[in-house]
C-alpha cells in the first residue's frame, strides 16, 4: 500500500488540491505543499506545466505559462521535491501532459518518482497502451499509483478496463469540459456519478473539474470518495500573501 491507498482506506470526503509547480513564484512548490498539509488538506496534485495544455481552461493555462516563464521544468521540480518526505507524509501525485515527460525520459521520470517519494501520476494524454508498454511494470514493482480519467462519454466497458489498470483512485471528470468551468451539478451529471458508483469499481473515485467551493465540494463527496479543486484554488492564491490566501481558501471549503 502506498500513501494514496492508505488515505482512501481510512478516510472519506477527501479534499485534494491541484496547483501548478512554479506558480506564483518559481520556488513556492514546497511551501505550498507544506501549508496545504498543515491546513488539513488530504492529498495534493502537483501540476507539471506544459505550453499546450489542451484539457485546461484559462486559469490553468495562465498558471502554466507563468510557471514556464518563471523557469520551471521537470528536472527543477524534482530537485524541489527531493526533500519533501522529510517534512510531510501527505499523498502527492504529479499531473502533466506527456511531452515534457517524454523529453525527460520515461525511465528517468520513474526513478525520480521513486527517489522523491511521489505516490502516483496523472497524465491525461497518455494512452493506456503506452502506459502498459512503458510504465506499468515499474509502477507495479514500486507501488506507484497510475490514475486515469473517465468522462461522461467513457463507455462502461472502458471504465472497467481503466479500473482494472488503475491503482489508487479513478479521476471522474465531472462534465464534458476542460478544467475551470463552474456550475452546480445538473441532473445528468448526478446520473452519471450514480452510474459509476453502480459499477462497483475496485478503485475509489474522486470527482474533479469545476469543483470550486464548499457547495460543489460537498455535493461531489455525496457521489464519490472526495473531490479535486484546481482552477478555483489557483485563482485564489496571491503571491504576496501566499500563506494567508492558502489558509483562507482551505478554511472556506472544510
Amino acid at each position, binding site marked *: 500500500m502506498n500513501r494514496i491507498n492508505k488515505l482512501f482506506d481510512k478516510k472519506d470526503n477527501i479534499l485534494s488540491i491541484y496547483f501548478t509547480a512554479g506558480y506564483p513564484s518559481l520556488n513556492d512548490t514546497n511551501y505550498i505543499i507544506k501549508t496545504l498539509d498543515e491546513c488539513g488538506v488530504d492529498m495534493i496534485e502537483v501540476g507539471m506545466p506544459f*505550453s*499546450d495544455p489542451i484539457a*485546461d481552461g484559462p486559469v490553468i*493555462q495562465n498558471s502554466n505559462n507563468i510557471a514556464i516563464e518563471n523557469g520551471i521544468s*521537470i528536472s527543477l521540480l524534482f530537485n524541489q521535491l527531493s526533500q519533501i518526505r522529510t517534512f510531510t507524509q501527505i499523498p502527492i501525485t504529479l499531473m502533466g501532459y506527456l511531452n*515534457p515527460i517524454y*523529453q525527460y525520459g520515461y525511465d528517468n521520470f520513474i526513478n525520480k518518482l521513486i527517489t522523491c517519494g511521489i505516490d502516483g501520476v496523472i497524465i491525461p494524454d497518455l*494512452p493506456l497502451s503506452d502506459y502498459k508498454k512503458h510504465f506499468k511494470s515499474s509502477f507495479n514493482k514500486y507501488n506507484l499509483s497510475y490514475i486515469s480519467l473517465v468522462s461522461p*462519454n467513457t463507455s462502461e466497458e472502458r471504465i472497467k478496463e481503466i479500473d482494472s489498470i488503475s491503482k489508487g483512485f479513478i479521476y471522474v471528470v465531472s462534465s464534458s469540459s476542460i478544467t475551470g468551468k463552474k456550475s452546480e451539478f445538473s441532473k445528468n451529471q448526478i446520473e452519471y456519478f450514480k452510474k459509476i458508483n453502480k459499477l462497483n469499481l475496485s478503485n475509489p473515485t474522486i470527482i474533479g473539474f469545476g469543483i470550486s467551493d464548499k457547495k460543489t465540494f460537498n455535493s461531489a463527496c455525496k457521489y464519490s470518495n472526495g473531490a479535486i479543486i484546481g482552477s478555483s484554488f489557483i485563482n485564489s492564491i496571491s503571491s504576496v500573501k501566499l500563506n494567508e490566501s492558502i489558509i483562507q481558501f482551505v478554511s472556506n471549503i472544510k
Partner: protein
Amino acid sequence: MKYNVNDKGFYGDFGGAYIPEMLYSNIDELNKNYLSIIEEDSFSKKFNYYLKKYVGRPTPLYYAKRLSEKYNSKIYLKREDLCHTGAHKINNTIGQILLAKELNKKKIIAETGAGQHGVATATVCALMGMKCVIYMGEVDIERQRPNVERMKILGAEIRPAISGSKTLKDATNEAMRHWINNPDDTHYIIGSVVGPHPYPDMVARFQSVISEEVLYQLDEVEDRNYPDYILACVGGGSNAAGIFYHYLDNKKVKLIGIEAGGMGIETKKSAATTTLGNKGILHGSKTLLMQDKNGQVTEPYSISAGLDYPGIGPLHAHLFDSKRGKYISVDDNDAMNAGLELSRLEGIIPAIETAHAFAVFDRLEIKNRVVVVNLSGRGDKDLETYIKWGKY
C-alpha cells in the same frame, strides 16, 4: 518499408492518438467508422460529385514553359489554386463534412492559420447548412484579413485564439478545447494531416485525389505516369501528402517537402520542423516537433501563416526519418522572390505558402527531369503581404 499508416494508427514510430479521455469517444467513433464510410459507394459518389461540380476538379496539370526554360527542366504545375476557394484545402473539407453528416453531427468547428482551411470549412458549412465556428490566432487574423472577412460573409463565427504565439498552434488548442466541451453534436474538421489517428490518414485520403489525377494527367503528356520529382510546401503537410500519396511506394519518384525557414534556421525565427525539431507529442500525435529541452513547444515563425506551425504530420515525420522524403527549408526572402518570379514567368500569383515550393529549383538536380510542383493555392489572400514586401 511501409510508408502508409498501420492498423494501430502509426507511421513507423510516429502518429497514434495521444488524447485526453474527454476526446476518446469522439476519436474512437471516427476511428471505427471512417474507413467503412469513405469506402462506401454512395459516399464516394457524393464526394466525387462535389469535387467535380462544386470544387471544379480535376484541376489541370499545366506545363510551365517559361519556368521550365529558365531552370532547364520540365516543370508541371498541379493547379490546386484553381479549386473553388483557392487552395487544396477544400478537398478535405468536402470529404469531412460529408463524413460528419454520416455521423449525424450538427455543428462544425475548425482551426485555421492562413484562413484557407477556415474559408474552405465555412464554405462547405454554408453549402450543407451547418453551423460553423472557426478558431484563428489573433496574429493571423491581422495578417490574413481578406480571408477573415470571407469566412464571415459565408456565415462562420470567428473566434480569436489569444494564447501563446496567437497563431495556428494556438488556434488548434482552442478548437480541441471546444471539442472537449462539446463532444456530442460537433465534428472537428482538422485542416491538415495532423492530430490524433485517424485524422492524418483520413485527411491524406481526401487529399489523395491530387496524385490520383496526376497519375493519368502525366501519362497523357509524358509517356509514363510518374515524374522524377514531386515538390510541395509543408505546413502540417496535407497538400504534400495528397500529391505524394500514390507515389509513396514508387522509389523512382523523389519526394521533396519544402518547409518555412522564416528568417533563417540560425535565427530560430523559423518553422522548419524537420531541421529544428525532434520527436515529441503535440495535438494528439507523436511526430517531429520544435521544442526546448524541457519539452515546451517553441513558437514558430514564418511570413506565411499556413506554414507557421511547430510540428508536421506523422506521415512526413516518417518519410523524413526513413529518408523516403527529402525536406528542405526556404526562408521568407527566397519564398517571396519565388512567388514574384512565378507571377512574372507564368502569370500565376501563388499563395506565400505555395511560393516556398518554387524556391528550390536551384538546389535540386532537375536538369532535363520531369518535375511536378503542387501549386497548392493562389495569392489573393496574400496581396497585402506582397504589397508590404514591395520589390516588384
